């Protein structure tokens, strides 16, 4: 998708690091927070990066958090009549867990987006985008379609993944979770750690510091639960082509790496193929906020931009796997202009955005 004139008008984030971007960046600069053990069945528990505890029901917690992050993004400044995209993998399954069996799933998959829209008193069209880990980036690409075509001046993307035992148990059953901690590209990495997050990205046609230069979405069904090297390569090439850029124009890559022994290695190798001998600096955020699944594209987008703007930088805090032949940057690259944000996920989804700092 070639994108002209789509800019970031505002951002908001609530995650394990904090209730807003400023507190999240501050916590990140202090070295982060610890995940919380979540029991999924008797004797089985997994660490999860949880939002700070709140009172009220699951739905009340969702509505309150959505209102908070949307307000941080300046929602309402552009009206509420444009398209709203709600990106999530688990949707309202956390609410369903508390229902008796006969009352479960009585509604439909749009109910979750309805809750979000109601929290914001949204008047425009409301879409659900659910493509597992790539949900939020696909929502951004859809919002860009709207704005670039002139069908909307502004769109709001909400990426939301709230606590539920179902997803934790499901990922645990697939043997994808780490029992101790997420170490993307790390030595001895043994799986991912899930995380809760609600993120808001307000996108518009009005020029601003950050421009979405292009993006891509590549689904490859050959490996539904993992990363496919050819799809990573296709995703990067397509995003670069649609942005009118070459590999050497990229100054930073926000990697997918979640701590999987196999998938991290496939991603590292594929990136080296795309960028040959000049692999740009890499940055990873999942050791700090966990893998926030359907929200991750928006959550990591917002957190990374906030880090750059605040002059803070995430540190890995663990030893990297020397066999991968890659490094994570320890500070923001100088002369940072074009950033490639990659998300790879469950179901063979591979999505990428190119973000340009127009002030650079």
């Amino acid at each position, binding site marked *: 998708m070639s994108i002209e004139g789509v800019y970031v008008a505002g951002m908001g984030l609530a995650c394990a690091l904090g209730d807003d971007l400023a507190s999240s960046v501050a916590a990140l600069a202090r070295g982060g927070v610890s995940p919380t053990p979540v029991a999924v069945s008797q004797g089985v528990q997994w660490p999860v990066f949880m939002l700070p505890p709140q009172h009220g029901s699951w739905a009340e917690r969702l509505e309150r958090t959505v209102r908070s992050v949307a307000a941080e993004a300046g929602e309402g400044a552009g009206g509420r009549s444009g398209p709203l995209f709600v990106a999530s993998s688990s949707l309202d399954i956390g609410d*369903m867990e508390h229902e008796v069996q006969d009352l479960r799933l009585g509604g439909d998959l749009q109910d979750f987006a309805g809750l979000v829209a109601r929290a914001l008193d949204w008047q425009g*069209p409301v879409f659900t985008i*659910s*493509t597992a880990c790539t949900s939020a980036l696909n929502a951004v690409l*859809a919002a860009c379609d709207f704005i670039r075509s002139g069908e909307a001046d502004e769109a709001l993307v909400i990426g939301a993944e709230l606590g539920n035992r179902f997803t934790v148990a*499901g990922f645990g059953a*697939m043997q994808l979770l780490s029992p101790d901690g997420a170490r993307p590209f790390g030595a001895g990495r043994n799986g991912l750690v899930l995380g809760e997050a609600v993120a808001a990205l307000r996108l518009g046609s009005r020029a601003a510091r950050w421009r979405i230069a292009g993006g891509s979405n*590549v689904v490859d069904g050959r490996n*539904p639960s993992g990363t496919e090297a050819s799809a990573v390569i296709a995703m990067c090439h397509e995003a670069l082509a649609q942005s009118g850029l070459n590999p050497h124009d990229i100054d930073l890559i926000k990697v997918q790496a979640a701590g999987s022994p196999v998938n991290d290695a496939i991603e590292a190798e594929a990136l080296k193929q795309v960028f040959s001998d000049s692999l740009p600096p890499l940055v990873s955020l999942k050791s700090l906020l966990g893998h926030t699944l359907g929200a991750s594209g928006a959550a990591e987008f917002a957190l990374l931009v906030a880090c750059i703007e605040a002059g803070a930088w995430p540190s890995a805090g663990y030893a990297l796997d020397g066999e991968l032949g890659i490094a994570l940057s320890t500070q923001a690259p100088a002369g940072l202009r074009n950033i490639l944000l990659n998300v790879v996920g469950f179901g063979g989804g591979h999505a990428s955005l190119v973000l340009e700092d127009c002030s650079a």
Partner: protein
Amino acid sequence: MNAGFAIGWRTVAHFSADPLPADWRDRLAQRLGRRLRRVGLWTELAMYGARCCLDAAGEGALPAGARLRVSSMRGAWGATHAGLAQLDAGALMPFTFMQGQPALMLAEVGRCLEWQGDASFALCRDPGQLVRLSRLGVGRAGMLLGVVEEERNGEKPRSEWWRLVPA
């Protein structure tokens, strides 16, 4: 939803699995040359309709630049319901969990269309808005658009697909 693409679009093929043949799973297995295992009813329904639609369009594979868009109000309802029951019992099974994910459906549909590309699962209460979204940004290779619902509460199963290209 009907596709409602009339202006500026050409419907190359439209397929609706109505009525759904009793032996539809056998037909799908025969067409793909393999018996499906552990992908779940909803995904199988999607694969059957998508493959039939593309065959009706005379295309062995979905062109690389085409988009795949799928919508469903209930999704993999049966697998999700079973998964929650398994969770209650303390043993959520990996394949049950996977079968509830729309992303797995997209992967399997793409695979049965011998295709790698831009696939997404989206929904909206207003079908007109969903059509509006689906057609934005589509290139010359067009798209394959599907609506897939499992049978539930007396409603018939649905797997309805359109192969559309810009006119």
